[in-house]
């Protein structure tokens, strides 16, 4: 920005942290595509979860009404955000909690560190949280001598493997069981060397490894799936019980929550507690959900904090075409149906937020003119599957197109004007598009150019193909041939045909592609279909 900002800038500041791609999507995707293990695992995971989701969604006769309600509640929450945040603060405080506000990642990290220092702890337990991943909290604390221990099994695998999550629901899906066993053998000091790669044994090794940590932890750090303005209630939705451990046993609980997670009323939970589990893990309900409101004397943490995080969210909110990306409840349904994500995996997106939602959320949080995220809005075929799957009906394809427009504007806007967001000299693309716009704006100009077609054809090889085009177009011919242009244009052929045959009949057939796409949420088998009968967890097994 060239304008000097006095007081509050007109565009809210961008967010920082792990929401920026480290390299452009095409390059990262190219590398990740070479990883066959990743692709096989991802394909299996996304298809399995997708099928489960369809099954449990089709059980509910009012699924579409719930999606409408979810979308309406989120829209309302965003429009009343100042009032709801203030109300949340009042309620949470009145019930014994402390509320902090953080403008960006750095401020949030500093607040968390300060709160941990007050307790004297040098180790904290963490329950999976995208907000703390976004702000890079673990790395920040590590550098300052505080160990932050991830307790979700997949997050633990990722952390012990010095790796990054690849899926927001099953973050270690890119690792197979043997790799996981090797990580455990190398990184868990107390594990038996005879550990096999059976998932049950691996899970039990993680249980044993974490149990002592849970029982002795003084401080826990969590995210939140919801914050209820009406009551000051926070909620965490999980499966393993590591969340309950963190939210119940330590004396101090610090929660980092994005400001967009606030819901107006307690009653809204009846909608989101139906939408989230079914969309996320494809279960009727996740094993555990914890809801807490400030401090309950004699039960659970007595020193309770929440940090309300902006970090670019107000920037996203200021984009009226993109703001509905903030409605996201992080269910990951859009990832599981995305043909691009299925092949490239989460790492290619660079950010904490991968997949279709990441492709819009990351550039909205940083601003699309942030060079590192400007290729993300192109990481989509605009097939629309994500929109159909989204439980809060975020129109991801529409926002992608909007952001592509913003990106083009940022890169290629005319140089006139002072405060332009333009990034440099006119590119070949600018020149080409300029020429195209000149030619296509007039039929006469186009007709004139078409007269050159036979010449172009003569320039092509014998087989009627260009194997190498010059300049920018070389990228296209790097891995494919371009057919030579025809000797006559469609327009001139049509004119001749019309003269010969009289008025042509309108041919109404369309390509039928749109009709072929399977609608999400289609009725599949009945309620009981596919349900595995409880095979009796016997007492012997559980002991």
């Amino acid at each position, binding site marked *: 920005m060239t304008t000097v900002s006095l007081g*509050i800038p*007109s565009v*809210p500041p961008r967010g920082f942290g792990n929401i920026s791609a480290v390299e452009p999507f095409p390059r990262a995707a190219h590398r990740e595509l070479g990883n066959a293990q990743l692709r096989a695992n991802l394909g299996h995971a996304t298809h399995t979860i997708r099928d489960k989701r369809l099954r449990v969604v089709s059980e509910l*006769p*009012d699924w579409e*009404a719930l999606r*409408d*309600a979810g979308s*309406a509640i989120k*829209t309302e929450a*965003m*429009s*009343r955000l100042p009032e709801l*945040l203030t109300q949340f603060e009042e309620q949470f405080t009145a019930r014994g909690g402390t509320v*902090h*506000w953080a*403008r960006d990642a750095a401020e949030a990290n500093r607040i968390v560190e300060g709160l941990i220092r007050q307790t004297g702890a040098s180790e904290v337990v963490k329950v999976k949280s995208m907000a703390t991943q976004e702000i890079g909290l673990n790395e920040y604390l590590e550098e300052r001598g505080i160990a932050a221990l991830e307790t*979700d*099994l*997949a997050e633990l*695998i990722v952390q012990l493997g010095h790796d990054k999550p690849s899926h927001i629901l099953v973050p270690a*899906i890119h690792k*197979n*069981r043997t790799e996981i066993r090797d990580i455990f053998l190398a990184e868990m000091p107390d594990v038996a060397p005879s550990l096999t790669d059976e*998932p049950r044994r691996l*899970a039990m090794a993680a*249980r044993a490894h974490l149990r002592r940590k*849970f*029982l002795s932890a003084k401080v826990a750090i969590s995210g939140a799936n919801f914050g209820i303005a009406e*009551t000051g*209630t926070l909620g965490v939705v999980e*499966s*393993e*019980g590591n969340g309950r451990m963190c939210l119940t046993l330590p004396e101090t609980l610090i929660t980092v929550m994005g400001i967009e997670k606030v819901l107006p009323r*307690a009653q809204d939970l*009846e909608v989101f*507690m*139906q939408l989230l589990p079914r969309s996320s893990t494809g*279960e009727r*309900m996740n*094993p*555990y*959900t*914890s*809801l*807490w*409101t400030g401090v*309950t004397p*004699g*039960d659970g943490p007595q020193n309770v904090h929440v940090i*309300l995080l*902006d970090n670019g969210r*107000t*920037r996203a*909110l*200021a984009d009226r075409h993109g703001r509905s990306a903030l409605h996201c409840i992080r269910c990951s349904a859009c990832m599981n149906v995305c043909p691009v994500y299925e092949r490239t995996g989460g790492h290619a997106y660079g950010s904490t937020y991968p997949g279709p939602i990441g492709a819009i959320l990351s550039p909205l949080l940083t601003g699309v003119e942030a060079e590192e995220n400007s290729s993300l809005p192109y990481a989509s075929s605009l097939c629309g599957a994500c929109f159909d799957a989204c439980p809060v009906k975020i129109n991801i394809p529409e926002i992608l197109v909007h952001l592509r427009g913003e990106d083009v504007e940022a890169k290629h806007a005319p140089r006139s004007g002072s405060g332009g967001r333009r990034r440099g000299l006119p590119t070949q693309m600018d020149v080409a598009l300029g020429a195209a716009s000149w030619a296509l704006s007039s039929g006469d100009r186009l007709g004139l150019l078409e007269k050159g077609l036979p010449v172009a054809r003569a320039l092509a090889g014998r087989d009627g193909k260009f194997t190498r085009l010059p300049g920018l177009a070389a990228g296209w011919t790097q891995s494919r041939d371009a057919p030579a242009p025809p000797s006559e244009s469609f327009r001139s052929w049509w004119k001749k045909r019309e003269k010969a045959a009289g008025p042509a009949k309108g041919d109404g057939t369309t390509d039928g592609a749109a009709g072929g796409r399977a609608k999400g949420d289609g009725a599949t088998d009945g309620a009981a279909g596919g349900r595995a009968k*409880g095979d009796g*967890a016997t*007492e012997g097994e559980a*002991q």
Partner: protein
Amino acid sequence: MSARDEILARVREALGAGSVQGSRPVGALVQGSPSVGSDRQEVTPERAPEPSAYRTPYRTESEMDEDGLVELLVDRLEDYKARVEVVARGELAGAIRKRLDGKRFVVPHGFPTEWLHPALADRAVTDSREAPIAVERLDALDAVVTSSAVSIAETGTIVLDGSPDQGRRAISLVPDHHVCVVPVETIAGIVPEGFARLDVTRPLTLISGPSATSDIELERVEGVHGPRMLDVIIAR
């Protein structure tokens, strides 16, 4: 300016910027709900739509009788690999005794005494907010027995709300075996009916089967950090 005031100012500004040119109407996506103006700078609470505007379209009531509720809840819980038993009120103490046979267990101080068989007395440890059992000691116990506040049949969910017959959250978490009593009158049909009976300001734990993970190659493993064994006894 404090972070709080600055963030709130940014939010107001962002919303103002978004609505200048008549952006999509906010909070009015449900048919029949009052339309909230789209071109204002500030949204006032009075103009927000009523909660009922969102309630109309989706199911808020199920019409299941007691048999139907019990049958559905049992089905869902078994699907989650919980062990379920339906007993008459008079047989409850005997059923609990069978589940806890030979085990040392913790019981919340408000648990009805008539539900605890006298034969169990010497292996029971009582816990309360006022006299909490240390976590290491809880870890050394085999089991816990509690009642429950509300259950939701359609999703197989049992809710504990920290009442005296359910106790502190830690006692139903640390021991490896949870025996949970569901009085039949606490069973609701669907999620909105369940939440309507709850006070969310109490410490709530929603339990749908024993803990589980699918983090390793999506293979489901029951029992990670929470109790690995969930016994549900529905009392009619």
